[in-house]
Structures are given as C-alpha cells and as structure tokens.
C-alpha cells in the first residue's frame, strides 16, 4: 500500500479509501454549520479577496489606495487618489462576475455608460469604469460622510431628520427613473449623507449589472444575504424579469418605515404611528409605498415626495441640478 499522504487541510493522514482522494472529515466539515464563512453581506471568501488592496494597487497603478470604505455584496470600495488628476475618488472593485457568460462585458459597458450619464446632486457620480485582468472596477465621486445604516447605528434619527432626507431620495429616484435607470437595491447602506448633510444615493443600477437578484436568491437559500432581501419588492423575488422603477418605491417605503421606527416591516407589521411618535398621515404614505402589487403602489417617486412634504409643510423648491 502506498504511504498515506496527509490531508493538506487538517494534516491528518488520508485513508486509502478517502472519496476521490479527499479528506472525508474536511469534506463533512465544509458542509456543516452555518453557510460558508467570511460572508459579508452574503459573499463568500472566494468572491471577496479579489479586492485585496495589494492586488488592487498592483493592477490599478494609476490610483493610490488610501483606505477601505466598505465591502459588501456589490464589491469592495476604497478611498483612493487618482494620481493624474490628484482628486479623491471612491474606487469600487466589483465582485468577480461570471465572465464565462459571454454577454457580460458588453452588458457591463452598456450599463456603466448609462450610469455615468446620471448627473444629479443626490446621486453619487460615476466618473469612469473599466476592466483589467478580470478585475472590474468603477470610479466614483468620493462622498465624505456616512451611510444611513451607520447613522442608525450611531443613534436613532428624529422623525424631522428622517423626513428631511426622504424628499432628496425621491428627487434622485425621480430623476433616474426619468432617465430609464432603476436602482434595484435601495437600502440604508446605499444612501449616503456627507458632512454637509447632503444626501447621495450610491450604486445605482449595480444590482442589475451584477444580476444581483438571482444571486441573492441563491445565497438566501443558503441562509445568507437576508439583509438585502428585506428591502426588495415582492416582484423582485417572484418575477425579477418584470421589475420596473416601482420596485424602488417599495424599497423606499421600507427605508422610510425603518427611519421612522427603527425596524423593518416584516410580516404583519405595525403602522409607523403605532410604533413611534409620528404624524398618522405618514402611515398612509408608507402603506401606499409598500403595496404588494406594483400597480397599487405609488407610481412615481415625486408623488412620495409631494405627500411627505404635505406632512412636513415644507414648500416645494425645484429639485437642484448641477
């Protein structure tokens, strides 16, 4: 009998009858416990460490990597300096995509172009995008601030603060929808507030670019990524191919509910005014945004904005454009 070599994982000697020559204990261990570890917002380590700073610096020498801003299902984001222009940017490294699917590269270019065309004060601007050695990246405006999730974690927003943010989100959505772009992944992590209090929505259209809904469903089956799914409109889960801009309005409804109550609406949820000291008229706004059936929902982001502003009594100014 040949000398038994050890398992490269656990270093135990491998039995001669190990299935396919693989260590059976390590095989079982890999299937045990919670779903694959190092999953941050649902992505397995296989897909994440492509964004290692050293790796990125090697492949994109035109940038100086300054700091890690965040990582999630949509990739890794660094604060970087674009050396030639000496400007700060957010450099987003996309998770490795299924580049075996032949249409991806064309789709990436097409989608990224339409994102780069979005030009609105409340939308994080896309400067550039590209691919190098299988690494797909997007260069964006650097927003010096925090996202809504981080604000929630720091403290609860007052209803007045929450309601001041909503119209900005609506403006951004209304503009993008008119340009034919659906966000598809509106959630607190994607709503940024800079140090001057300006609201900016990030990651427009990325979910579609990355076919994220399909991936989310897969990961959810494996018990991951519930974070994102809670903000998804019902049709995004049931019939992702039918999704239009009204899915964003549903997600917006979830975000408003969470801003007002600190919870996301799941199952039979209480009305905002039952959970928090807020104007009862907000109940109707939230319920209307959260209609299961897209046709029964708000049809335009501007309607949500108008209704919220009726409650807050703020006069309407024309939306800022840059």
């Amino acid at each position, binding site marked *: 009998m040949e000398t038994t070599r050890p398992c490269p994982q656990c270093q135990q000697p491998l039995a001669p009858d190990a299935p396919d020559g693989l260590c059976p204990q390590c095989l*079982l261990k890999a299937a045990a416990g919670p779903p694959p570890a190092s999953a941050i917002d649902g992505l397995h380590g296989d897909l994440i460490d492509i964004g290692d700073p050293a790796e990125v610096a090697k492949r994109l020498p035109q940038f100086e990597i300054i700091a890690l801003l965040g990582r999630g299902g949509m990739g890794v984001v660094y604060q970087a300096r674009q050396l030639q222009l000496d400007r700060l940017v957010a450099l987003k490294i996309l998770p490795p995509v*299924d580049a075996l699917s032949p249409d991806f590269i064309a789709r990436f270019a097409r989608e990224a172009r339409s994102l780069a065309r979005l030009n609105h004060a409340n939308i994080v601007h896309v400067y550039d995008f590209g691919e190098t050695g299988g690494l797909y990246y997007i260069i964006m405006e650097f927003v010096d601030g925090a996202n809504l999730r981080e604000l929630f974690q720091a403290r609860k927003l007052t209803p007045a603060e929450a309601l001041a943010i909503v119209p900005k989100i609506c403006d951004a959505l209304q503009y993008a929808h008119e340009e034919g772009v659906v966000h598809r992944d509106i959630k607190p992590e994607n709503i940024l507030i800079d140090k001057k209090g300006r609201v900016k929505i990030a990651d427009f259209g990325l979910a579609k670019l990355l076919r994220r809904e399909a991936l989310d*469903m897969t990961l959810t089956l494996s018990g991951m990524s519930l974070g994102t799914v809670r903000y998804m409109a019902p049709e995004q889960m049931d019939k992702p191919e039918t999704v239009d801009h009204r899915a964003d309005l549903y997600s917006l409804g979830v975000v408003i509910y969470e801003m007002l109550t600190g919870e996301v609406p799941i199952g039979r949820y209480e009305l905002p005014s039952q959970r928090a000291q807020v104007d009862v008229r907000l109940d109707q706004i939230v319920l209307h945004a959260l209609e299961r059936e897209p046709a029964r929902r708000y049809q335009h982001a501007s309607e949500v904005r108008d209704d919220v502003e009726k409650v807050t009594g703020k006069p309407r100014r024309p939306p800022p454009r840059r």
Partner: protein
Amino acid sequence: MPPNTTDRKPADAGRFELTRWSMVVAATDGDSTQARAALQHLCTTYWYPLYAFVRREGHGAHDAQDLTQEFFARLIEKHWLESVDREKGKFRSFLLGAMKHFLANEWDRARRLKRGGGEAPLSLDAQSGEARYALEPADRWTAEQIFERRWALTLLEQVLGRLRREFVAVGKEKLFNALEPALTGGKVAYAEVAARLNLNEGAVRVAVHRLRLRYRDLVRAGIAETVSDETEIEAELQHLFAALAG
C-alpha cells in the same frame, strides 16, 4: 459552469416532507408504493455499510451476502417495518437496530426455513462488497464503528459522484477535476487554476463559489433523505463527522 446555481429553483426549500425516510416514516399503512420505492432506494444506497457491519460481526463472506439479502427482502417485501420499532428517528439508527434485531432473533430461523426462490428485491453486488470489505481498516474499529464510518463515506461518495455527473453533463469535467480539491474548504490558487484551464480568474472564483454552495446543498439534501425532521440534519452531520474519527 456547472448547472447554473443562480437559475436553480429553490431545490431544498419546502421539500422536506418529501424526503425518502420521512416518507417511509409517514406511511402508516406500510403499504404505500411510494414509501416502498423510497425505502428501496435508501437500502440500495446504504447496503454496503450494513454488509460491512455483518462481516465485522464475524459472519463469513457467503453468509453475510445471504444474510444481507434476506434482511432487505424482509424489510422491503414483508412490511417488516411495522414489526420493528418505527418511531421517529434516523434511517441510519433504524437500519442498524433492525439488523441487530434480525441477527439476534430471525437469522437462524430464516436460514433453516431457507427462502423459496423468488426475486431478490435489491440486487446487491456481493462481489464488489467483498472486495471493498477487504480494504476496511483493521481491527481497532468495532462493527458498529465500521458501519457508521462507511455510512459517512457512502454519503460523500454519492454527493461527489452526483456533482461530477452534473459537470460531465455540461462538458466541464476538467473544470470539476481542477476545482474538486476546494471542497475540503482549503484555499484555491485561483490564478494558477485559471491559467491552467485558460479561463479568467474571476470565472474560476465564481465557479469555486458555486461548486462549494452546490456541494453543501447536496450533502445536506443527502442527509435530509435519511432523517425524519429537518432539525436533525446538523446533528447527523456532526455525528457522521465524529464517526469518521473513530
């Protein structure tokens, strides 16, 4: 790519009540054709661990073959299930318990009466069984330990075989061979594999990711077939893990 996991229907969601052992347990009349087919399938999958148990209990090769065959015949044909304690539990424990009972109480009588012809309900490849038994680890393992270790290995062989077939079916066997070692949870030299297979690194990463998820689902689905309740899957996994250590 292997069968595209992102397009996969929620394979394991909500289907628990349909797993084979839970179906057998639920068939109270003992006469359901479906339950019988389910039991037959389970027995075909896991006969060898039982055979190894019988051999290690001291029965010779010839006897062990007859005995295993007879045991399954009774189990499947004669609704013998009903006479055995058939409370909720794992198929693995049930099968071992039933075999012990059979060895203690039935076998001598059965041998005296000798089955009168008839088709064997399972075609067990006795030759290969004996050939495999020759490779079982030496004496430090008890019959019961051999049974459980073999059970765990059988499950893994089934899963790896199925995964390989899925890749072969879409003409990706080379990819499978290159990625299979990743299933033990180790790091993968993505760039190296990519260069060897002439793929880009991102594609390899996605393929590894999907392979790992699919593997995990298949192991858990395989275990689900042998337990009567979804909550038992993790415990059974841990049990089999411990069984491999001996």
